[in-house]
């Protein structure tokens, strides 16, 4: 979290919240959580942690706690609070709305592993989801069973407000919950979920080419909220499924998806909606062909059965992309509204990253793909908040390095480490922390302005680190780096994050020994 670290102490049925204190001390707050913790997930804004607990099973007069969701909040004044909601059935997975309106508890893809508490109930409904409203007049969670055709939910996506039905004059902004199961995609209208007469039924979209009876498993999706289009890729099909949510006055929902298929020539590994200088497109990466495909979504809007695609050859089999338009645009005062995408890949044969300009702008007048050479495949690209930087983590085979990608200068500065590092980026975007989580005491702080590393060390091996804010998190207020030592009853070494120095650091031992 932005201003705290939460340790789940399941054996004591509590959460230990660590917050900043002066002179590298830590304040500790102890909050009760439900028995038998199953999973936890932080909200994207870093202010709330949602904790799922299974409760007691079997329930007895002395141990009769229901399954529950606990929301632990650490606000910008470092005030710690919690809210608890009860559920009828235990669930092991969470999805948190990035806008902060909803949280959904659901069965999840690996319930047995997450559910490490008491024995499982004899019968469960894996298609039940529980939606918790976090804002508005409704405060009680609502359980809902998704229609199943032999499928169970795998991933949940909250859309931004979409104008639905697409293209209709009476279109209204509403939010959808998109549920990817192992066989289809389900669309649930969240804006009408808490209606007095009950939720509107979800729409199930089976994924099939129509040529065979085989149903396909969705592998990811992208949403265009402006035009009411959902693009879905699958694990084994070369088609991208475009679902346009058109008006449907005769159905329970006032929209219904119109499905168009766009063959991209290979199984797409990633996709997103992009703005090009010729309009909005779906950009899909096909690493097996080392190319990208732009799909014209206007054809699906006009309900033309054939979609128009444009194939762009790429210099490397990139498998992932993300938009970096806002970071790059400030340097391109004369740029069009076209997006710039960052391409990378962790697959064999891919290397480095590339910036893919989706329009002809003043910045890139001569080519659309600019490669930044890095010898090894890039495993992940981490965002640096409030900056024009990205941190590139290379795959383990390259070992001992990570890169600071400057999107303005189009440079990728390597930072060498003696072993494969784990990376933690400060939420204020000022520094990155590198450490070795494999029984090592080595730690380094890298100032992202100067790229100057400060080597540090701790007494005990580091398992993970967190850079948390103190008072006045938006200004130049103090921050602490908490290096967690997963030994004994958990300890930490606390550094002044802005001026890290072992002479001022402090060991805070026995984090789980204190408290009620």
């Amino acid at each position, binding site marked *: 979290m932005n201003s705290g670290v939460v340790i789940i102490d399941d054996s004591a049925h509590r959460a230990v919240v660590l917050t900043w204190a002066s002179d590298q001390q830590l304040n500790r707050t102890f909050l009760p959580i439900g028995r038998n913790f199953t999973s936890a997930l932080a909200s994207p804004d870093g202010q709330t942690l949602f904790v799922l607990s299974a409760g007691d099973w079997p329930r007895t007069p002395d141990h009769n706690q229901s399954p529950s969701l606990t929301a632990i909040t650490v606000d910008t004044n470092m005030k710690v609070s919690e809210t608890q909601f009860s559920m009828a059935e235990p669930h092991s997975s969470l999805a948190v709305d990035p806008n902060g309106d909803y949280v959904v508890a659901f069965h999840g893809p690996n319930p047995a592993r997450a559910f490490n508490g008491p024995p499982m109930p004899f019968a469960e409904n894996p298609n039940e989801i529980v939606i918790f409203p976090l804002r508005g007049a409704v405060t009680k969670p609502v359980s809902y069973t998704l229609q199943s055709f032999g499928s169970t939910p795998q991933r949940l996506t909250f859309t931004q407000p979409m104008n639905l039905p697409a293209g209709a004059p009476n279109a209204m902004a509403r939010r959808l919950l998109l549920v990817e199961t192992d066989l289809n995609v389900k669309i649930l209208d969240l804006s009408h979920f808490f209606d007095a007469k009950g939720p509107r039924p979800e729409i199930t979209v089976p994924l099939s080419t129509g040529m065979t009876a085989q149903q396909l498993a969705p592998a990811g999706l992208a949403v265009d909220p402006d035009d009411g289009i959902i693009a879905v890729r699958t694990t084994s099909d070369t088609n991208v499924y475009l679902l346009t949510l058109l008006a449907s006055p005769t159905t329970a929902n006032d929209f219904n998806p119109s499905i168009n298929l766009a063959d991209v020539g290979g199984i797409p590994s990633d996709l997103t909606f992009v703005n090009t200088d010729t309009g909005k497109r779906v950009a899909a990466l096909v690493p097996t062909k080392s190319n990208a495909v732009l799909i014209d979504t206007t054809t699906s809007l006009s309900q033309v059965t054939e979609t128009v695609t444009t194939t762009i050859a790429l210099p490397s089999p990139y498998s992932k992309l993300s938009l970096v338009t806002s970071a790059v645009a400030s340097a391109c005062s004369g740029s069009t509204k076209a997006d710039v995408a960052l391409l990378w890949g962790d697959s064999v044969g891919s290397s480095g990253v590339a910036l893919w300009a989706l329009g002809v702008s003043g910045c890139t007048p001569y080519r659309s793909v600019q490669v930044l050479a890095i010898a090894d495949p890039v495993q992940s690209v981490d965002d640096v908040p409030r900056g024009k930087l990205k941190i590139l983590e290379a795959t383990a085979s390259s070992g001992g390095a990570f890169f600071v990608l400057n999107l303005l200068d189009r440079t990728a500065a390597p930072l060498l480490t003696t072993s494969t590092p784990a990376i933690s980026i400060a939420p204020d975007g000022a520094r990155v922390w590198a450490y070795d989580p494999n029984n090592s005491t080595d730690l380094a702080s890298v100032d992202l302005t100067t790229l100057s590393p400060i080597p540090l060390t701790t007494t*005990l091996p580091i398992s993970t680190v967190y850079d948390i804010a103190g008072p006045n998190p938006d200004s130049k207020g103090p921050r602490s780096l908490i290096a967690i030592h997963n030994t*004994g009853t958990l300890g930490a070494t606390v550094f002044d994050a802005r001026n890290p120095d072992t002479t001022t650091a402090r*060991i805070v031992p026995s984090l789980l020994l204190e408290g009620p």
Partner: protein
Amino acid sequence: VKPLTLVLGLGVAAAASPAIAQTTPQLPESGAPSTTADTRTVMWRVEMGYRGSYLPSAGYDPFSTNDLLPQFSLAATRTIWNAEDVSFAPGLAWDFGSAGATSRGDTTTLTMNRLTVPLEGRLHFGQWGYAFLRAAPGIAAVKVQVNDSSSPDPLTRTRWLFATDLSAGYAWLVWPKIRAATSPRLWFQGDGGYGFVADDSLTLVANSSSSSSLRSSSVDLGTLSMSGGFFRLAAALSF
């Protein structure tokens, strides 16, 4: 000083006034005339035994699985005043005990040294021994230690605390029972009561003899109260 003077004075008076002794029917069980104070009443006394304390404080839980603290008990007293069947004997006592447990995987130990001044009032029953009431103000040194691998050094705390015992019991004269015996006497005794020790906050810090160069925060384990009921079984020698 005055009670001792009184006791000695009584002894001297008894030795210097055989006529009074002859006319007073204070014969020992052997029938021999008494020429000195009854050493079943006026005596030096050293006792040694077992003391068990029940400490219900939650602060004691990390150090014990059963709330009990076993202790070795040693005390020495001297009768400094007596009249009829009543006597008063102050002294010095030392109790030592330790406990240990495992708290969340950490080994914990607690040791306590208690130094008190027992002030004992006795009601004697001749060869059957005596009953007593004891108040024992003093101090207790409590040392706790937690060995947690998340701390480079053991977490410890040592404090001297005000302590007082209040108890009642009975001392049974085992042998020899006769008044005229000159050999040391053996006693068995038992008492029970309440031991009070001032509360202390369990704020533990890492041992400063550490090889670690980093500063360390304290660990607050709440409040420790070593107060609680106790019993004591002891054997004693008097002379």
